[in-house]
């Protein structure tokens, strides 16, 4: 084995180790930073697995559930799988002022976390709109909003 071959093998080995290390770190990091797309029904079905990770919860603002506190600073509402009575739904507390379009029965995506108290704390509230620029029709199921909102800045871009 000549010295240049040995050097080359050594370099190759070092590269492989570095590459494997990088892949290991990257996959570990990805695992910790996944954002899940769920409807209220899907999220509730996860049980305690849903407590903790960042979730993008999509659904329809349940009619009659909008509630502001006295100082008009904190907003709570229920997000439901659909506008049918009895559809699975979750209480959402929004820390953010909702956009102009926000109202009952509109499709929304809220990003935040869910915890044992069964309250979804949202740090970001996005109103759904499709590429054709119309709000979801009352009949549109969750598949529809899934198809229309996904990017982190979907509200804006």
């Amino acid at each position, binding site marked *: 084995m000549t010295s240049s071959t040995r050097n080359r093998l050594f370099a190759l080995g070092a590269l492989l180790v570095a590459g494997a290390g990088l892949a290991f770190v*990257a996959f570990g990091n*990805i695992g910790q930073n996944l954002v*899940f797309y769920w409807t209220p029904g899907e999220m509730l079905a996860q049980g305690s697995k849903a407590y903790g990770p960042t979730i993008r919860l999509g659904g329809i603002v349940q009619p009659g559930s909008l509630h502001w506190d006295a100082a008009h600073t904190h907003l709570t509402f229920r997000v439901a799988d659909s506008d049918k009575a009895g559809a699975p739904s979750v209480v959402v507390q929004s820390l*953010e002022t909702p956009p102009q379009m926000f109202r009952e029965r509109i499709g929304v995506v809220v990003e935040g976390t869910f915890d044992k108290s069964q309250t979804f704390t949202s740090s970001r509230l996005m109103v759904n709109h499709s590429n054709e620029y119309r709000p979801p029709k009352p009949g549109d199921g969750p598949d529809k909003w899934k198809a229309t909102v996904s*990017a982190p*800045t979907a509200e*804006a*871009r």
Partner: protein
Amino acid sequence: MISILGTTLVLGGLLAAAFGAVVGIEGGLRHRPNALKIVLGAVTVFLVCMLGANLTMVYALVTHDFSVHYVSQVGSRATPLVYTVVSLWSALEGSILFWGAILAVYVFAFSRAHRNHPPTNPLLALGTMLAVGVFFSFLIAGPANPFGRVTPVPPDGPGPNPLLQNHVLMVIHPPMLYLGYVGMVVPFGIAVAALLRGQLGDAWMAVLRRWTLIPWMFLSVGIVLGSWWAYAVLGWGGYWAWDPVENASFLPWLTATAFLHSAMVQERRHTLKLWTVSLSLGCFLLTILGTFMTRSGVFNSVHSFTQSEIGPTFLVFLGVVLLVSIILIAVRGPLLVPEGNLGSVASRETAILLNNLLFAALTFTVLLGTVFPLVREAFSGVRISVGAPYFNRMAVPLGVAILFLMGVGPSLPWGRASPETLRRQFLVPAAIGVGVVLVCLVAGLRGGLTLLTFGLGGFAGTVTLREMALPVRVRMREQGEPLPQALWRSATRARRRFGGYMVHLGVVLVFVAIAASQSYVVHTTATLKTGERFQLGPYTVQLTGLRNGVDPHRRWTAAEVQVTDGRGRQHLLAPRMNFYERSTDPIGSPAIRSAAFEDFYLTLLAFDQGTPSASFNAWIFPMVSWIWWSLPLFVLGALFAAWPERRRARADAPEPVSVPGKAQSPGAAA
């Protein structure tokens, strides 16, 4: 009528490209110099057809011919003329049509620039590029045909996506990005030609380098303008979100940047040939992947227009290109033997090698985070995305290491550096870097990584400025030239060096600006009634009232606010919400008060005409505008480096000799 004309032109382009591709590759492989004339003709026909098809579409748009499918999709009588023309690239089919035109212009420019080159390489390269042209004209003629007929003819259309007619940047940003994306076809063709021939001489390498630099420049401009547009128009309070679409443009930029550096090693040391060529192929693959991601509707954003049918076609094309690339590298790659060795550890080539490894690692991590959700969904049906924290945690350390190398590399000589040289070269810049950190600490700034970035920025910036100034000083001292003359001469005598350092300065600016604007951002939201105020940092914001207005294509409501800054100066800002005729959702326009060291950024979230009241999102972004100010440095630097050095010398350059190991004079071409 328009439909028939347009479709005919596209089919003509398809035929010309197919013919030229076959003749070019066959002629190149069999060394038939006469084939070049035929291929040049095919290129010209392709250009005429593609430009003609685009002009036809523009004509249809401007005359509001709603019988044309694409016009009925994006046209509207209310849209101002500029945005009507621009809507050529504001939706899927049009943007692919426009793509075809840019491709044709690139191929034509390449064929003209190198028609005096010995014909084998240009034949193979043009053949490859035209083969790509076949795919795109097929897309335009088939799955993404914009010229379809609509019956009955609608009286009016919806107009382009309101977001795209909200700001003039929309007129510049997409063409720049397209020029960058499509331009990568040219280095791909050049690299494929080198592989098909199994040799890469210096002359052909120079061609490859220059034709990478041009799309690299457009890509840089496109990316910076895109983030500026996101910042100034979208109003979500940021400029980069690690959105798949942004990543799609960033990935080929990374590989192209790595290429531009490894090309220097290849030129000096005649090694890393296969790696350099692989980077060129990788750039093109990543642009196709990016186009697939943004155009097929697998990701949703303003860039992915509709759920379209072109996804599978693109995926097949991507697979074919990937397969061809791998086969070429595996079968022909071993022919590109290195003719030299890398130098010692403390040398510039080692620094560049490290730089390439870091860029490769960065490309890998960004690519992984971008495609991971797609792969996961394809296999398990679970819809997820990868959060920005992943990208930040992976990319920031790699970026900081790259910034460090930007100071180290230019300080090291080629070959071998003595300890004494090292001390002399690094003492002052390192001291300045440490000084920057200390000054920041004294000024009360905190945050380890941020301060490290500032320090390394000072270090790399000092090195870059010194490397630019040294030859000037030598000229002034030894030739007695006055400063401007010495500056001009030393710059023009080493264009690529000087241009490269200009770009480096721009990159330092971007690093520092990103670190500052991400680390020291301040944000709040507030709801105000008329007369009420809120405080953010040194700024006081008072709502004076709501105002409504009407433009031809939209209505708007603006919240008029009076902003008092830390020095007591008053500014009137009016963040707005625009209502486009055929769009159900309002589109916000943020109001930005930009100063040298910080931006005050205000968006209107919601308003109530009755009270009247308005809700705001407000941010203070330190130094964010420095990111956009790096643009001139990128453009000037790249142009400076790409400018033909000695036209005549290049035209007369000797034929690339096919014996490996015989170096050509590297001065002949830049």
